[in-house]
Structure formats: C-alpha cells, structure tokens
C-alpha cells in the first residue's frame, strides 16, 4: 500500500515537472522536428524530378467549423467556400491559384454580338458523381432551383439578370424562359442586358450543377449528401469532426492525384499548429504568434503558401455627413496622414497598401495607372489648411467597426496618425448586425469596412461600392454618386472585351482618387504552411483550397 502510494505520488510530481519544463523543452522539440522534416524534404527533392506527381495518399487540411451543408444553393459561409470547389462544379471553374476562369463542364461558349445571348457547348462524357452523364437539362434544372424562392438561396441574385427570372420567381411562369436547352449538350441563356461578369458568376460554386434525381431523393438532407461534378465526391462526414472527399475517377479533367482529402474541423489556431507538428495535419494557417518560427525555419519557410486575397479594407465616409462627406480635400488629408506601413508591419507584413478599392490580380488593376497617396504628414497638413481646417477639425468622430479584436489595435494606429493632423476619432466596435444596419441606413459618418467578392471580377467591387444604383443597402455605403463613374461602371459591365473594360475601370479609378469616397487602407495576404510532403498546393485569393492537382511525396 505504502509503496503504491509513493509510486503514484512520484507520478504526480513527474507530471507536474513535465508541465514545468514544457516551456523550456519547446525549442529543443522544434529543432528535433525540423531535423526530421529536413530529411523528409531532401528525399522528396531527390525523387521528385524523376517521378513527377505521385498517385495516391490522403492530404489532411482544416477548416475552423463544420461546414454543415454543401448544397450549392445554400452556401454562403467561409468554411463551406474553402472546401466546396473541390466538390462542386458548373459551367466554369477557377484555376487552382484562383486567378483565371477556366472552362469546366462547358467545353466552349459563344456570346452574341449584343452580349445578351450566351451559348454553352457542354463536354461530352462529363459525369456526375453518381455516374450519370451531365446534360443541358441538368443546368436548366440547377439554375431554376437556385432562383426558386422555396430553395431560399442567398445567391439567387446572380441569375436575376436572366430573361424570365423574375416571372419565374413571382410564380407567373413555371420555367425561366431565358434558359433553353437547344439539344442535350447545348445550353442557351438569354440575359435581359449584357453582363460581362456573368462568366465569373457562372464559375461560382453557387451555380454548380446538381442532378435532379439526387436532390429529390434527399430532400432537405441534400446538403449533407451532395452529388455534383467536381474532382472529388463527398465521402465520410463526421459531425463537428471531419469530412473526407474521395477522388472522383470519372472527373472530366482526369482523376485527382490524391486518393482523398480530409478536412478536419479545428477552430483553435494553436491546436492546428500542434497537430501540424505532430504530423497529423498537412496544412495550417499561420497565426501571428507562430509567424517568426515558420518564416525563419529553413524547411517551413519554403512551404509557406501566400495568397494576396481579393479583399480590401477601407474607411467608408458617409458623403451626406459634414465635415468629411462634404470635403474631398479633408478625405485626402486623412489618407496622407495614415501610416499604412506601420499597420502592415504590425500585421507582420501580411498585407499590402491599397491605393484603390480593387485588389491586385483582378482585371483592370494597374498599379502604374493609380494615383498614389504616400504617407506624408506635410502634404496632409497642407490639404487640411486648403480644406479650411488648418487648426484641425473641431469635435471628435466615431468610426464604427465590427467587434473583432485585432481590428481595434489597427484602428488605434490610425487614431494616433489622425491625431497628428488634428482629427480626433473614437473607435466604436459595434455588433455585426447593427453595424451593417448603420452602413445601410446611413446612420454613421465614418466606418471601417472590408469588401470581398462572390465572383472573381472587378465588377464585384466597383458596382456595389460606387454605382449610384446601389446607394445605401445595395453596397454603396458612402452614398457616392457621380454620373461619369456610373456610366463607366455600367459600360464596363456590358463590355465583353477585357482590354476595353480595363480602360473603363482605370477611368473610374482616376475619378475615385480625386473624390476618395472610401479611404483605401490595405489588401490582406493569407499565409498558411504545409508539411514538406505536400506538393503543388497553393492557397487561392478567393479563400479556397483546391486539391485536384496536389500530390504527396512520401
């Protein structure tokens, strides 16, 4: 009895001691795993050139929460969007790096000269995960399903420009007259007016094709039993735990190299790193606290995945409110005063300075053509004087923002910058609902805000933010209205020629730089790290992780 007690006591002490030394042990263990990883890597680089992509294996990735539902008509969340492009596919798809729109089930397409009639020729032999060949009827069914109000799809608006969509939604017609099947593999869509970004909308996961028989078989449970046409099909799904996608052998563009990809649901960012170190996770987002370690590590620094996301942070100015709304010089002064380099340094370099609303990588982005606002206190003060506020702006002004912890720290930097030119701002974190309501109703004067796009096209930024049709709740929260800008954005929407569109957007940018209804801040950079065995993986600027061409070096 007594010796037993001693053994157990010793165990307790040992446990405690191991906890105490854990901190001290950390650097040792990390060099250990580096050493191991290094040898992995050297093997991989020796074998890689001769063997090329290797078939087989399972990559383990992450999202933070269970996506719950993969019904293309229902998807609106981040966790869903990361995974879904591996499962779902429609007429077009995004390239793995997210920068190109590639033909998918549509092998080719043609647009009529007036830009309203789009004809798609579907691939022969492209199949659903259940083995049935995809026909034009399936697209007609899938698109009408998204438009049907009973489906409650948040993305029905993507198709609202199709002729007959409204009549269908209001119940006046039982089909959408603008979606026609010319034969089993030819689909014709007629738009009420030309819309250049329609192509990128068709590449959205929300407009993926689904087979009617499976939707009807599963009913409300279709979201957990999705059948579509992407390179992977839905496999085991353990609620709140993980979901596995299996390689789809009959994918039109060739089977994925991997046998499967598993996404684990891990919300805690430290846990993900521990899992990566324990070699039970292949990819993890790099939290700020771990940045130094991974960026200095000789192996892992080569395995950092960067994506300049289609994401812009800015300060929205309510143009209806004095004094900032009435005075472009004052808004320019604000921009000159902001020390964006300091902000980016505090983000560990994981952002770039924004000169406009459009993030780099999208059509029409031309850094050379943009007006630059370098940080310059002298210029800022001169502009303040020109605006009639040589001694600063009296009073203090609330900046509303969603209540996200990191954000407040950034706003504090801006607050200090603006104080130097005599502008006092108050940081006012606001719950997301009331925050959005303030933006929509115009009951604010300054707001921190960000914008991402549902479709990889500049229109997703310019049209909602700056066209006067969208004033207020449509997304133009600054209440900006300029006839030239409206005309240019509208013409660009209707122009199919890319070079011409780019020019139109650059004209919008020039006007924007003068008026500055939104004060651009930064574009985000997403950084993750993967284990050395993962090959050919790139994160995308649209926050998707594509695994079709990823392979494992073992």
């Amino acid at each position, binding site marked *: *009895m007594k010796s037993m*007690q001693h053994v*157990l*006591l010793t165990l*307790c*002490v040992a446990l*405690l001691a*191991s*906890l105490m030394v*854990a901190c001290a*042990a*950390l650097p*040792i*263990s990390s060099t*250990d795993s580096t050493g191991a990883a290094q040898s992995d890597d050297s093997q991989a680089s020796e074998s890689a050139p001769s063997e090329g992509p290797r078939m087989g294996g399972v990559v383990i990735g992450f999202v933070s*929460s*269970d996506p*719950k*539902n993969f*019904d293309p008509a*229902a998807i*609106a969340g981040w966790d869903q969007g990361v995974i879904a492009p591996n499962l779902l596919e429609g007429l077009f798809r995004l390239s793995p790096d997210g920068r190109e729109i590639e033909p998918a089930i549509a092998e080719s397409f043609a647009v009529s000269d007036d830009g309203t009639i789009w004809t798609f020729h579907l691939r022969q032999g492209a199949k659903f995960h259940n083995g049935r060949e995809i026909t034009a009827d399936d697209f007609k069914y899938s698109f009408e399903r998204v438009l049907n*109000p*009973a489906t*409650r799809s*948040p*993305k*029905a*608006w993507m198709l609202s420009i199709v002729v007959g969509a409204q009549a269908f939604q209001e119940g006046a017609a039982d089909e959408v007259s603008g979606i026609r099947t010319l034969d089993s593999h030819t689909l014709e869509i007629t738009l009420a007016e030309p819309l250049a970004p329609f192509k990128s909308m068709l590449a959205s996961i929300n407009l993926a094709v689904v087979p009617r028989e499976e939707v009807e078989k599963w009913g*409300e*449970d279709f*979201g*957990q039993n999705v059948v579509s046409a992407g390179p992977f099909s839905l496999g085991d799904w*353990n*609620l*709140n*735990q*993980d979901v596995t996608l299996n390689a789809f052998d009959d994918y039109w563009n060739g089977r994925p190299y991997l046998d499967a990809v598993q996404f*684990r*649901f*891990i*919300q*805690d960012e*430290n*846990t993900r790193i*521990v*899992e990566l170190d*324990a070699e*039970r996770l292949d990819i993890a987002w790099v939290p700020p606290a771990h940045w130094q370690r991974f960026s200095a590590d000789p192996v892992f620094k080569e395995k950092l995945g960067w994506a300049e996301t289609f994401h812009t942070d800015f300060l929205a100015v309510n143009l209806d409110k004095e004094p900032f709304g009435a005075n472009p010089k004052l808004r320019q002064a604000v921009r000159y005063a902001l020390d964006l380099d300091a902000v980016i340094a505090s983000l560990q370099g994981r952002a770039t300075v924004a000169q406009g609303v459009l993030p780099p990588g999208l059509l029409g982005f031309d850094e050379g053509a943009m007006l630059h606002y370098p940080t310059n206190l002298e210029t800022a003060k001169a502009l303040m004087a020109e605006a009639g506020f040589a001694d600063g702006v009296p009073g203090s002004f609330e900046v509303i923002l969603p209540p996200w912890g990191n954000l407040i720290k950034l706003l504090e930097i801006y607050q200090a910058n603006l104080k130097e030119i005599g502008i006092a701002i108050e940081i006012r974190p606001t*719950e*997301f*609902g*009331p925050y959005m309501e303030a933006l*929509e109703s115009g009951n604010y004067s300054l707001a921190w805000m960000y*914008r991402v796009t*549902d479709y990889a096209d500049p229109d997703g930024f310019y049209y*909602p933010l700056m066209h006067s049709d969208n004033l207020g*709740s*449509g*997304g133009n929260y600054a209440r900006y209205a300029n006839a030239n800008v409206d005309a240019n954005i509208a013409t660009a929407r209707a122009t199919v020629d890319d070079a011409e569109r780019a020019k139109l957007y650059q004209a919008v940018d020039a006007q924007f730089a003068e008026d500055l209804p939104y004060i651009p801040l930064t574009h985000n950079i997403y950084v993750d790290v993967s284990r050395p065995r993962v090959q050919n993986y790139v994160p995308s600027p649209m926050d998707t992780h594509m695994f079709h061409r990823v392979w494992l070096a073992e």
Partner: protein
Amino acid sequence: MLRYIIRRLLLFIPILIGLVTMLFVLLHILPGDPARLMAGPFANPDVVETIRQEMGFDRPIWIQYLDNLRRLALGDFGRSYQSRRPILADLIEVFPKTVQLALAAEVTSSLIGIWLGVIAAARRNGWADRLIMTIAALNLSFPLFWLALMLQIVFAVSLRLLPPSGYGAGFDRFVILPAITLALPSLGLLARITRAALIEVINEDYIRTARAKGLQGTLIMRRHILPNALIPIVTTIGADFVRLLGGIPMIEIIFAWPGIGKYAYDALVFRDLPALQASVMILAVAVSAVNLVVDILYAFINPRIRYV
C-alpha cells in the same frame, strides 16, 4: 423516495419553459439577424427579406415564441438554420461525446483527488501533505488553455505518445489529454475538500475511541472516517461535474472534440435558435439530473437523511 424523485422530475418542466423563454428573449435582444447571417456577408437586402419570410421571422415575436413552445411541447426540436438537418439527429451524435469526456474527466479527478486528499489527511502536516497541497494550489491557478497547450506540446509533439486533438470512438487515447486538462483543476479542489472533511472527522471523539480500542489506521480510515466525510466530497463532485459541463465548450474547441459544447458555440455564432435552445435544454437537464443524483446519494451515504 420515489415520490420525491417524481416531484423533482416534474420540476424540470417549469425550469425548461423558463430557460426556453429566457433564451428566446436573449436571442431577440442580442443584435444579430439570423436571416442576414444565412444570406452571407454583403447580401442583397431583398435576399435577406425573402429568407426572413421563408423562415417566418417576419411574424410577430409572440407568435414565433408560442409556435416555438408548441413545437417543443410536441417533442419537435426543429431543423437547424445552418445545416437544415433535424436537430435531434445532431444531438444524438454530439451529446454522448460530451458525456463521455465529462465522465472520463470526473472519474479521473475523483479517484486521484480523493486518494490524494486521504493521504494528505492521514499524514497531515507531513511532507506528503505539504507537497499535495502545493500541487493542489498550483492546479487551481493554471489557466485551462495554457494547461491544454502544455499537455499537447509535451505528450503529442515531444513524446508523440498521444494525439494532440480530435476524436476516436470509445474510451480510446483521444480522450486522455482533454480529460486530464479538465480533471486537473478539480483534482486539486477535491484533494483539498477531502482533506478538510477527513480532518474534521478525525478530530471527532468516536475516532479517538476507535483508536483507543486498538483498531488499525487504514481500517479506521476506511470504516469510520471516509464514510462520515463523504457528504461534502459527494457535494463537491456533483458541483464539479456541473462546472465541468459548463467549462466543456472551451476544451472541446481547443481539442477539436466534436461534442455539444462546440455545437452550441457554433449555433450561437450563427444565431441558430433551434440548435442553441436544444443544446442548452439538454445541458440544463443534465445539470438537474446530476443534482438529483447527488441528492439521492445523500440518502444512501447518510441513512438519517430521508426524502418525503
């Protein structure tokens, strides 16, 4: 006794109605519109309005409330706003996993905690007592997330003995780290309570009598001291189990444990009222059930306690 139990069970009903009402009011006072969350960020206001109508959020609040109560009374938890799946199916999957983790943690902390307390009391003011009480004090002051991270680093990364997070069916190795993290703080508390309770009994006259008639030390401990000190210990275990059920969401998040805590957290973030209220109801029933079991145990431990 049976009548007492039935009465206690009937008390669950008003508790649950009160709880559902409170949740409903809270979720409607709290900013955040489920229709907007379903529509995604920057959704078109028309879309939000359509969803609001389809989901019946445009009806008067009191009608929504009564409708909600009526459905619950019929045993219909509804479908999750997020997954559109029946909530009952979700709960059947997630709740047992939380019970599994809570039981593993509570059994660990009770066994080790009581045992440490007994040693400390038996050798009070000796070195073992001091050591145990020091460990107990340290345990109480560790933040859980730190403890979790240290255990992960030591046992999963450095030693590669255990998986750092995740879930495996049954009582396998996945449960060990989260259970220890949950057990360690209560282990210290239990050791202290046990020690105090035992020392109080040890100072009683009948223990001196037992010693005087020459009974062996371990026998006195087992026959006379422990049974008489059990009431505060059982109370503490009950209260601790309740604390554990409440503290579990954080541990489930850190260890990616697919239980009801993480499920309820996601539901709260998404303003998924049906999923949230069902999770909270189950947890409330669990807490009331634990309290009931503790009360019934009192009667077994101390035959002088009678329930009518």
